[in-house]
């Protein structure tokens, strides 16, 4: 059953697969930058810094092991974006894939959006089983043959087809902004956000978009915040939210006005004055926002915590989970080595009972909202025996370190899990370390 129970108390996670190179020397292009399941969970897409997209497909469940869900194997790999150079600004545009979003499926073909800093591309992945070959009167490319060259007759046959990945319109016209977030709703609508603006796209009209939010001040010296993430409401296609670097989330209704500068709701928690430090602004910046599947809640991730908000209450979150509070005393060194700028993502499970997010040392955390429990797990090659159960990990914060605990100073801050994804229906999770993708499944009974 979809995310049955989902509680961390009764779910044990097993290693299923790991994708990617084994050696410790990580090529920059192989660094995974986004992970996303499609709406059925059958397909899993990853994007990397080299501009490539890899799509994995789940094998059908085998009859021998009906409870063990199928493995994910490579379905398609393609180069989505290439590095570009903006000659006007003398800027190199990275080919890194910032986000992938699957569109709701309407027919046999799958559509996904991939974006780098500048360009959003729409990809169509279609599969035809067979294709007739060997026409007598037509060439392979469809041109008609010269009848004089036809000397023999043959019967056309059906041959299996390779997967086709293409862009129906040759790609979306580059918007004059830096894209850091995209959200797709219907087949026709797509939101893209840069630091200062949010645009609405009609996927069939690719040469222009509608600007619906603009927070650029008249005088850039008065700039105080930027947009960090945007997401459509899962059920109400007119509603979307966007988060800011100041820790606020604004909910906008596109029916209210064409330009959604005036938000319908603003969600913000007052700062705790006891926790004020040099880095208060940095750690309150929201790195990800995700609606629950039900649409009633939304989750935000800032540097140290995950917060669940009820859309009906703007004054404070209904739940707050500390991801790695032990880092609060280390903020100065994390600022020096730039780790404090890491943008962690978060995700819901299928029935919104558990949320998950990443941390350092290849740890990732799950918080069960119902049972009020949390667990820390690790994605590592050492725990990669097939179907081996993941053991909960613990970081010791006090002076005495118990056995099996790891001290804060021993954490490897180069091993960070920024991107995680949860299968929409089953207890299958995809966790991306720097250049490896781990797939874990719920332990079958």
């Amino acid at each position, binding site marked *: 059953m979809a995310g049955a129970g989902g509680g961390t108390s009764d779910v044990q996670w097993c290693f299923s697969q790991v994708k990617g190179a084994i050696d410790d020397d990580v090529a920059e292009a192989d660094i995974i930058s986004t992970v996303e399941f499609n709406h059925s969970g059958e397909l899993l897409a990853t994007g990397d810094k080299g501009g490539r997209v890899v799509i994995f497909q789940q094998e059908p469940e085998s009859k021998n092991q009906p409870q063990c869900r199928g493995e994910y194997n490579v379905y398609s790999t393609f180069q989505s974006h290439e590095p570009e150079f903006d000659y006007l600004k003398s800027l190199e545009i*990275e080919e890194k894939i910032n986000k992938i979003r699957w569109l709701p499926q309407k027919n046999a073909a799958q559509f996904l959006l991939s974006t780098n800093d500048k360009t959003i591309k729409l990809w169509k992945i279609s599969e035809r089983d067979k294709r007739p070959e060997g026409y007598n009167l037509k060439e392979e490319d469809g041109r008609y043959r010269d009848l004089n060259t036809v000397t023999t007759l043959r019967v056309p046959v059906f041959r299996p087809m390779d997967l086709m990945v293409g862009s129906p319109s040759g790609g979306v016209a580059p918007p004059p902004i830096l894209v850091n977030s995209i959200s797709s709703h219907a087949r026709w609508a797509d939101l893209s956000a840069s630091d200062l603006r949010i645009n609405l796209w009609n996927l069939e009209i690719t040469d222009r978009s509608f600007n619906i939010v603009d927070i650029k001040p008249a005088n850039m010296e008065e700039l105080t915040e930027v947009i960090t993430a945007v997401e459509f409401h899962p059920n109400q296609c007119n509603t979307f939210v966007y988060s800011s670097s100041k820790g606020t989330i604004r909910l906008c209704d596109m029916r209210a006005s064409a330009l959604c500068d005036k938000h319908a709701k603003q969600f913000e928690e007052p700062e705790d004055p006891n926790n*004020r430090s040099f880095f208060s*602004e940095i750690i309150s*910046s929201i790195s990800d926002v995700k609606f629950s599947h039900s649409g009633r809640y939304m989750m935000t991730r800032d540097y140290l915590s995950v917060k669940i908000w009820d859309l009906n209450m703007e004054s404070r979150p209904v739940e707050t989970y500390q991801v790695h509070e032990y880092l609060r005393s280390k903020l100065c060194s994390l600022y020096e080595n730039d780790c404090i700028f890491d943008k962690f993502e978060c995700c819901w499970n299928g029935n919104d009972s558990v949320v998950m997010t990443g941390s350092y040392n290849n740890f990732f955390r799950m918080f069960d909202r119902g049972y009020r429990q949390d667990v820390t797990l690790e994605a590592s090659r050492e725990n990669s025996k097939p179907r081996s159960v993941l053991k909960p990990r613990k970081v010791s914060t006090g002076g005495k370190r118990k056995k099996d605990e790891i001290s804060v100073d021993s954490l490897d801050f180069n091993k960070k899990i920024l991107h995680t994804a949860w299968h929409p229906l089953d207890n299958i999770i995809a966790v991306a370390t720097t250049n490896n993708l781990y797939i874990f499944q719920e332990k079958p009974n």
Partner: protein
Amino acid sequence: MIHTMECAADAQSLISISLMKIHNSRTQRGGIKLHKNLLVSYVLRNARQVYVKEKYAEIYRMQQYEEVMTVCNEIQELNPLDLDAEDAGDEEQARAACCGEEASLCGSACHRGAAQPAAHARTASALFGCSPLEDGGKEPDPSYYRSCCMEAAPVPHCDQFPANGSTHCNITTVLDLDTHVVTTVENGYLHQDCCCCDALQCGQGAQSPAKKRKVEFGFCTSDGEEVSDLTSARKRAKREDCSYFHLDYTDTSNISNLISIFGSGFTGLLSRQADLEQICSKQVLASLGAWTRAIVAF
């Protein structure tokens, strides 16, 4: 209110680190990231606020000390016989005590308890609430004694002072709001960092023989030394250790200069000399947008 755990020392290193980050972001692949630089500017602002607050506290303490010393000297002048009757040891002890007291005022917290006030300095310490010395107190630290008993002539240059290796006395930078002079107190010895103001007397001309017990102020012309511009300050910032105790006085003066530069906005990057003369409370409390202006300039 920034957590009291952080002090001006951390603020200075944070300022250097932040400026370095902004500088490095110009050469990063993909261009300058607005979000990251905005967050760095917030750290800069917070660090500057703490730094400035500490400086004001220093100035206030120095001013109070000067007032107290003036009062003490006046008290002494009322009893000239006491002055002659004191033996050399007492005089030296008193002089050292002044330095000890003054060193304690310089912000080295470790010395607040170590000050060895004697005679009139005890009055000073009483005013400041320091614990008074018992009779026959122990010898003051030789470092204070040595630094305080320097002869007025020849006036050594600050860069010739030996680093006595004492880890007791910290380096503190003091901003004189009246003369717009930034001075540094190192190991109980005062230096003048900026030669921008000609009226660098800082009490030297005003010293009279009767005020021997006042701490001798060193005079550093530093005319051979170029006050750093932003580029060399950045280079210095790059070489800097994060630990405050590794900063030498030139770095603190550079940071003071950088503070003034950013305090007056982008134009400060173009005309730094004018800005040095504008070090004053008004500039220091300039709009927070000054930081963003500098960032945008990059």
